[in-house]
């Protein structure tokens, strides 16, 4: 029997389910992102994966920041946790990145594969390959497509202690009522809580 790798979604959300506020900002989650305990958790997660699936926009966001952080560790000196930050940069550099895009032609980063074919076929192919589990960090519309195709095996949501009252929802409008199974929770000292769900 062929064991398929798991694809899990890993995202920071507000209490009311937004991944960005109404101005498309994420500063409400930045404080948590730099919390020591959270960075340790995040690096551990990065170590555990076989690769990451990214939408084009989030890939370009990462591209604008992480390769520099890896090439120039001294530049991170004023980051609150420079060693953890550098470790994150190292892991993001090393791990395979699968970018879903019909328009991106050039990789520009280490270990990048552009997925431009049929999304369902491409993702199933990836999951079929041997190796460690895969993570999707975003964007929301890519996540929505994958949810609708039943290709997401687990949701790891980091619920930040804030109600935003508007913004970009993680779970898109078009989704119909979906029951999930809560499998795990973990509280962070910063006030965020990890909620892990699997589809039925």
């Amino acid at each position: 029997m062929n064991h398929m790798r798991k694809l899990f979604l890993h995202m920071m959300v507000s209490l009311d389910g937004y991944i960005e506020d109404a101005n498309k900002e994420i500063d409400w989650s930045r404080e948590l992102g730099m919390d020591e305990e959270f960075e340790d958790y995040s690096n551990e997660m990065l170590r555990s994966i076989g690769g990451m699936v990214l939408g084009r926009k989030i890939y370009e966001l990462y591209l604008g920041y992480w390769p520099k952080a890896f090439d120039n560790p001294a530049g991170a000196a004023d980051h609150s946790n420079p060693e953890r930050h550098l470790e994150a940069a190292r892991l993001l550099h090393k791990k395979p990145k699968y970018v879903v895009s019909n328009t991106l032609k050039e990789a520009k980063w280490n270990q990048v594969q552009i997925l431009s074919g049929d999304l369902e076929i491409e993702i199933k192919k990836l999951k079929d390959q041997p190796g460690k589990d895969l993570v999707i960090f975003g964007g929301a519309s890519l996540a929505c497509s994958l949810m609708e195709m039943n290709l997401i095996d687990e949701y790891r949501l980091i619920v930040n202690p804030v109600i935003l009252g508007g913004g970009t929802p993680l779970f898109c409008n078009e989704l119909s009522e979906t029951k999930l199974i809560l499998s795990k929770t973990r509280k962070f000292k910063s006030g965020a809580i990890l909620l892990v769900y699997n589809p039925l």
Partner: protein
Amino acid sequence: MNRRLIYAMMASLDGFIGDKNGSTEWAVVDDELHRHFNEEDAAKGAYLFGRRLFEDMCTYWPTADEDPEAPGYIREFAEIWRNKPKYVFSKTLQKADYNATIISNNVVEEIRKLKSQPGEDLSLSGSALAETCIKHGMVDEYLIYVNPVVLGSGRPMIPEGINLPLKLTDTRKFSCGVVRLQYSKLKKTIIR
């Protein structure tokens, strides 16, 4: 020291308290959670209701324990509900039974007065009334019961345009998959 105003809500994972038809049928509740709600309500000093919610509840709860087939937690809650002091906020309601007092003016002032009275904490229910309380910074504690359900669309837990940073004070997992997140309010409530 003021008694606290507590707002509890059963929410979907994507932050809705009602589906697109306003229904709450999707909510996941079992015996354990029902009993927990009863315990929480029993410990409160009073309920604060908007008129609509109060009238809805009056159609069922006052006599819910008369049905011998009704589960224990229903019969238990019916008694708690009937006897608990209630403050119903309405400009139109003339009369209200079941230990209810109607407040038709100066909502904010009256709630501040209630909070300054001695007694156990106050339970806030009804989204219109909650909106008023939230906008005036009067809610001290938020209890979000996160259900293992995604709705996609529906009625948001908080009115649009309110930005509420909170402080997580406690968490509890229930066997039905609901997670109770307890938050206290921070100083700043931003209203756009």
